[in-house]
């Protein structure tokens, strides 16, 4: 494949086509939803937290471009089983590293939407700076 693969590496496409942890999560203790008004990308994130320490379950729902949806899927794999404190410490660099692709300003908004939703769900209103 050509240079398109810079952006759409197999890993991204794999997460997009076979999203991990996608679906509803009845009995979730934390949840949040956000959308990217300019793009129409949407992500909802739901989590179960054990004893307010450990994120035992996480699921997302959403629609949008491959970048936003793959980013959401990847985020769930990162967060699952993590301590809430560690999840709170996740920053944009962590996500960009996980995605492992060069992103233009317009696509950055897509990539960081799921992280924004995570922060919202964890009650941390600080924007990740999209």
């Amino acid at each position, binding site marked *: *494949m*050509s*240079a*398109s*693969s*810079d*952006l*759409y590496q197999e890993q991204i*496409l794999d997460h997009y*086509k076979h999203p991990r942890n996608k679906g509803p999560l009845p009995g979730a203790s934390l949840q949040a939803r956000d959308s990217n008004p*300019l*793009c*129409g*990308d949407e992500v909802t994130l739901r989590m179960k937290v054990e004893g307010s320490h450990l994120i035992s379950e996480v699921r997302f729902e959403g*629609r*949008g*471009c*491959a*970048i936003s949806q793959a980013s959401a899927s990847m985020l769930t794999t990162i967060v699952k089983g993590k301590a809430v404190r560690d999840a709170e410490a996740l920053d944009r660099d962590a996500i960009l590293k996980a995605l492992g692709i060069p992103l233009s300003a317009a*696509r950055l908004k*897509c990539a960081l939407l799921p992280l924004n939703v995570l922060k919202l769900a964890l009650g941390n209103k600080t924007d990740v700076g999209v």
Partner: protein
Amino acid sequence: MSKAEKTLLNVPKIQADFPILHRKIRGKRLVYLDSAATSQKPRQVIDATTDFYMRYNANVHRAIYELGEEATREYEGAREKVAAFIHARSPNQVIFTKSTTEALNLVAYGYGLKGPIQAGDEIVGTVMEHHSNHVPWHFVRDHKGAVLKYVDIDDEGNLRMEQYDELITKRTKIVTVSMCSNVLGTINPIKEIAKRAHEAGAVCVVDAAQAAPHLPIDVQSLGADFLAFSGHKMLGPTGIGVLYGETEALEATEPLLGGGEMIREVHLGRASWNDIPYRFEGGTPNIAGAIGLGVAVDYLTDLKMEAVRAHEMEVTRYALDEIHRIPGVRTYGPEDVKQKAGVLAFTIDGVHPHDIASILDVEGICVRSGHHCAQPLMERYDLPATARASFYVYNDSDDVDVLMAGIRKVQEVFA
């Protein structure tokens, strides 16, 4: 016909006039298919604005010295060129604004919010309008109590003309419609709509942002009372737009911007207005922009708008034929290129439009993705977004071929 080689335009010669088209994007030839957002500019236009700044930059209308005389002459000369381009009766019917958006707001404020529109008066729009022909009318509703109504489209993207029978009433004061949709490419029957508006005693406001660059326009035969368009979409500079107004309609219109140039006399607390069109051009205008637009109009006039239109029909016909050969791609808007300008909205099954645009970008192809500032239209189709390719005088069937190869690549990536 298979390819657009038989076109009336000499595309290679035209391309040679556009410096940006010689740029490479990641080693690939730039294939610019987003002229509906903004067009590229020929050397002639770029040179005209440079020449203004290098040789005769001065403020217009009031200076006695040589530079000011020259600047005024060229600025007013541009007004005459634009008037001739749209077949206005007089240059005094041409007002320079900064954009279509300002032009439409000028009408909404000047004829609506601050003008003759009263509570209960009705304004009839359509669902296919650009946001710039939606939001200004909300203001008139909010501040004057006008009532807003919308004509729907059929599934092919044509206005349901029969709805005007019902929607236009004795209370209708404004009928507003785009001459050409920036998503579907639909060319609307302005003449017929203006006629119905006039029969009801309403004025017809035409958003020609997507029409002026691509179709021959004769405001007199159309019967438009107001008609708006932008320079930057028709080979001209950014920051310059036009509002044409029928003289009677302009006389009923209050100025939008108060300030220098637009007054006859100012005293503490009171003022009277200058003549039309200056009344509507408060402040120092975009002089370089107007002069550049004048040269853009020269360029298009030299090509002949009939030839521009014929060329774009050919390219669009070819693009429709080709895209339909690719399974899993949907297009929106009329199929008959006689009803459609060179705008091609499409989606690919299983691929978000942003991903289409990103992958095409890697191939050097510029297309737009999103709602195209036409959210009510997207809602009508229940779509979050589409990709959109749009064609202009510098595009030809080669560009279409590159686009089709790009679309196939998108499908491969997402296979």
